């Protein structure tokens, strides 16, 4: 940026900081505050509330809790059967059993993979994204990893190196470490890095630094690309040191096909080429006289000496003459439209027919086989030097300003980097080491944010000076230490958070909580549960689940919700069918991405605040806008869901309209209606089943549908 950046290579010296920023201090597990609460999380939360004299709201009722946990953990509303089973379970640990069941459900992995992929900037396509075909295999890998509760350090390690380590990383360990052979499918984890490949070879490394530092270290280092980071402890030199770690990476294409499929594909291409050859000759022969005539006309327009040059066969021209010929080449280039323009009407028709016959024989390209792009270290690039880039411009390395690969900041004990296993391997060891205070802190804060609608640190990807300080520093450190101790089990951390008293609180604060409201209006101290607007994907899933047309299959390519417009064919490269038959696939699989030349991300997603994957998205803003209202009021998707739900209400329950109203409430609000609500609904229906569709519309448009309370 012109405003800050040193235009040339001079790297300004940074003022030495006198104090270590809180997030870079080592994690020390705090002792639990006194208290009777069984869940350690509550000890910290309640201690703080007691100190401030804030009264907390009691537990939410079972039906509310069931809907909340379902939509949070799986992104799906509870089915009527699940509601009945949970309400009927009067055992003391009914809720804990529910949480266990939900965390083991594969749909939980789909939901949380989507959240992680926001942070890791998943996109099905971008401007020049080479790795676009097959990128969904990385998503599938993330879903699988979460479903099998892969330890978090391994989850990160695999996405950076494609390999699993035998033992947990110890920075103090010296010498070569034994590594396990990659398992089949592990290469898909590298989609994270391959995703960053673009037009310029430098893009891969630049995007790797941006994504890895925000996602796993909570540091926004992007600004250090052009100038020293204004607030945070990352200098321009440290930024490029980190980038140098990834500089040797190159993209590699893997064809995901067996030998038989490859042979088959080759044979088909050869055959097509053979069939095309005579047709191609016919077209060229037919056009030859017109081509020659046009060329002659244009030659005559040129000065005589140039004409002479152009008429010479290429191998007889001198170097100087060839330069002239190259300059005039565009003048003599004959485009297809000029060629056909020179033909009389009838001749042109014959010519076009010949051409269409030729075009009728399609060459089945190798791309028809499924491919995946992965990354690997190029030994040649590893030997090249790395430089600071002038103004962060990938095409302008500052050759006077060489940088060595290294870490963005120092941790204790400060050992020099050991690159014998490879740069990224060494970096990954450093990143995931117990001594790195950011690694676990950033991760547990993300999980917390996803459950509670806000992190203990409000900016989950900025643990620097602009990100602010944590609301509960001791709790954050306790969670981080616990995360390390339990072997980085995300499932364990989810469980701890979701079974806490703090999570189970009611969201509504009546007049009796006026004082709490005044003391902590923003609910920073979590004296009640925060009302949360459903995100785009759960809106989509809830609509179609209620209508009974949600396809729960997992895996595979993305799909596009827009149907039947001109761009469909182009989109098909990236997306699959929306679902089988009448069914719609889960919202997590809706296509997203960005391009200057076409819309990739559907309006529906954008309207509901989904990012296109250009940047890592740590927090989705929750806007409330008129286009959202228009979508729920008038879109064909909602209309179809209303029709299907109405049909289901008429078909399924025995007991006429009163039973239909009960079922509607169960399907859309995950509870039974109160007597007054039921009476109101029945009065609205006026004993006319045809009105059910209107009732469905009302429910989908009501606040209760779009909010989790």
């Amino acid at each position, binding site marked *: 940026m012109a405003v800050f950046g040193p235009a040339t290579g001079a790297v300004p010296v940074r003022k030495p900081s006198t104090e270590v920023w809180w997030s870079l201090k080592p994690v020390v597990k705090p002792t639990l505050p006194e208290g009777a609460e069984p869940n350690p999380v509550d000890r910290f939360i309640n201690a703080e509330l007691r100190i401030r004299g804030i009264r907390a709201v009691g537990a939410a009722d079972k039906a509310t809790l069931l809907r909340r946990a379902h939509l949070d953990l799986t992104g799906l509303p509870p089915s009527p059967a699940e509601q009945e089973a949970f309400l009927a379970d009067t055992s003391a640990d009914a809720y804990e059993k529910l949480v266990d069941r939900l965390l083991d459900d594969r749909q939980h992995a789909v939901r949380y993979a989507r959240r992680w992929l926001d942070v890791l900037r998943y996109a099905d396509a971008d401007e020049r994204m080479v790795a676009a075909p097959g990128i969904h295999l990385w998503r599938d890998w993330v879903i699988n990893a979460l479903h099998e509760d892969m330890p978090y350090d391994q989850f990160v390690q695999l996405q950076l190196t494609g390999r699993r380590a035998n033992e947990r990383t110890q920075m103090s360990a010296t010498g070569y470490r034994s590594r396990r052979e990659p398992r089949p499918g592990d290469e898909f984890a590298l989609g994270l890095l391959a995703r960053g490949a673009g037009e310029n070879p430098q893009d891969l490394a630049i995007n790797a630094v941006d994504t890895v530092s925000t996602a796993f270290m909570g540091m926004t280092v992007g600004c250090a690309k052009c100038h020293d980071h204004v607030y945070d402890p990352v200098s321009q030199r440290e930024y490029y040191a980190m980038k140098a770690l990834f500089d040797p990476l190159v993209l590699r294409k893997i064809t995901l096909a067996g030998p038989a499929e490859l042979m088959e594909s080759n044979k088909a291409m050869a055959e097509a080429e053979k069939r095309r050859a005579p047709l191609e000759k016919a077209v060229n022969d037919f056009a030859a006289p017109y081509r020659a005539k046009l060329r002659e006309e244009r030659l005559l327009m040129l000065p005589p000496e140039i004409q002479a040059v152009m008429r010479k066969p290429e191998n007889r021209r001198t170097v100087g003459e060839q330069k002239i010929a190259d300059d005039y080449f565009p003048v003599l280039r004959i485009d297809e439209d000029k060629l056909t323009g020179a033909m009389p009407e009838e001749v042109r028709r014959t010519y076009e027919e010949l051409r269409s016959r030729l075009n009728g024989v399609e060459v089945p390209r190798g791309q028809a086989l499924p491919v995946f792009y992965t990354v690997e270290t190029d030994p040649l690039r590893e030997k090249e030097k790395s430089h600071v880039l002038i103004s962060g411009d990938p095409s302008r390395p500052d050759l006077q300003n060489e940088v060595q690969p290294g870490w963005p900041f120092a941790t204790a004990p400060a050992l020099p980097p050991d690159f014998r296993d490879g740069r990224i391997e060494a970096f990954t060891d450093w990143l995931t080491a117990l001594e790195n205070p950011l690694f676990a802190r950033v991760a547990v804060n993300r999980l917390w944010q996803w459950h509670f609608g806000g992190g203990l640190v409000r900016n989950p990807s900025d643990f620097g000076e602009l990100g602010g300080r944590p609301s509960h520093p001791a709790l954050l450190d306790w969670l981080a230490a616990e995360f390390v101790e339990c072997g980085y089990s995300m499932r364990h951390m989810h469980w701890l958070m979701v079974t806490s008293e703090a999570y189970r609180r009611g969201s509504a604060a009546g007049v009796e909580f006026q004082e709490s409201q005044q003391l902590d209006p923003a609910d920073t101290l979590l004296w009640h549960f925060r009302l949360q607007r459903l995100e785009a994907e759960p809106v989509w899933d809830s609509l179609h689940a209620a209508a009974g047309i949600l396809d729960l299959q997992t895996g595979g390519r993305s799909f596009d919700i827009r149907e039947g417009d001109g761009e469909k064919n182009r989109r098909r490269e990236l997306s699959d069918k929306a679902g089988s038959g009448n069914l719609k696939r889960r919202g997590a699989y809706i296509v997203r991405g960005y391009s200057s030349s076409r819309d990739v991300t559907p309006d529906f997603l954008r309207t509901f605040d989904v990012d296109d994957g250009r940047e890592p998205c740590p927090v989705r803003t929750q806007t409330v806008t008129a286009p959202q*209202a228009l979508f729920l009021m008038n879109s064909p998707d909602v209309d179809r869901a209303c029709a299907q739900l109405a049909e289901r209400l008429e078909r399924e329950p025995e007991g006429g309209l009163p039973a239909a109203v009960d079922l509607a409430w169960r399907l859309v609000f995950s509870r039974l209606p109160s007597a007054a609500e039921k009476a109101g609904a029945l009065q609205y229906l006026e004993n006319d089943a045809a009105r059910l569709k209107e009732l469905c519309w009302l429910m989908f448009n009501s606040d209760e549908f779009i909010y989790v309370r």
Partner: protein
Amino acid sequence: MSGDPLLSKLYPCGRIARRRFIHQLGGGFLGLALGGIWAEAGEAPQPAGLPDRPPKAKSVIFLFMCGGVSHIDTFDPKDNKWAGKLIDAVGFGDNLAEMRRPVIPCLRTFKHYGKSGIPVSDWFPHVGGVIDDIAVVRSMWCHEGNHFPAVIETTTGQRGRQFDHPALGSWVSHALGSANQNLPSFVNIGRPSSPVQLTGGYLGASVAATPFQAGQTPVPNLYPPRDGTRTGRDRQMEMLETMNCEFRETYAVNSDIQARAKAYELAARMQLSAPEAVDFSSEPDHVKSLYGIDEKETQEFGKQLLLARRLAERGVRFIQICHAGGGNGGWDAHGDISTHAPHCRATDKPIAGLIRDLKQRGMLDETLVVWTSEFGRTPWSQNTTGRDHNPKGYTSWMAGGGIKGGVIHGGTDEVGYKAVDSPHYCSDLHATIIHQLGMNLASMEVHTLGRTMRLVEDGTRIREIIA
């Protein structure tokens, strides 16, 4: 409204029934100080609301010709003394190597129009007729020589897409909000070259362009599905209030819930006001023919410009019209410069009609009309009679909104390649627009993603054309 005993009895939570609210439309009874129709209570930055000084222009009609108009064949005539000679050329687009190329003759004839005598080519005779209201800037330039990067640069003022920079219209919408609570503040008409031309970027979805079209459905999802009836929907809206009542009372302190009620009210208002804005039945025939709506060639663009005037009249701040968008853009005349001819015919009369119509209504003084492209075209040939991309020099013009009429400012070199006399970077055009709207460049600044983002990094208004 809570003072009405009958009303509070019918609607205990104090909200007004929609049917009643429809009847009172236009009375301004809501009295809400909303930033824009898409106003929200989320975390996105709130509009500053008021201009910094009395504005010269209340609305901007931004005409963007997609693909790159040849300035040499339209508003920046050169004599043909270089024609046929080889000059050092730099390739753009697909030819990056340096080379020598022959300058091609300009086949247009130029006529001096109006009192100012500004020369305009025979491709724009109608625009020539209103040239005394126009300031022609012949010395625009930008960096990027390919369509998408140049569209991004000339639309957002920033190169590259490392950040999701918002379009010019979004900045205006963000800073000024809407003058009409029933319509969005930034509207796009016509197919753009790139979705970037519509984006609200880091300013949020609430300020992004709302695509309007002159036709049956001006806005997506605006109308209920076909089988619904108006009375049915009214009944539903009333029932919806009742159903939301308890929830809204329970969560009354939550600003989101209030915003949601507003969003529904605004959506409903849009349903009523948007169709009225696109309904031309009240426009007399002579006005329609001023825009060329009665002629086949000019019909489409004429309708779009008439719609633009109607939106400006109704307080929409920024109306962007993209002509010949999609792909590289229709003005991209590599093969033969004469492919400009039909585009000129399609736009000439409607543009002149717009300016005349604004003037006769007394609206031109407060409506800024801007005509531009992502870059110009080269003096030398590509494929004999075509011209290549030229970001080093091109022409933009402005009319109304406190801009001097009948002036030429700046100039390119003698072949029409580089802007040499008072060169203006594309951001200067943005700075001029912002200035005429009564705002300082400081209001085009937000702090987000850990840094300060600006519409104009380095640029200033074009003082010479400001009245």
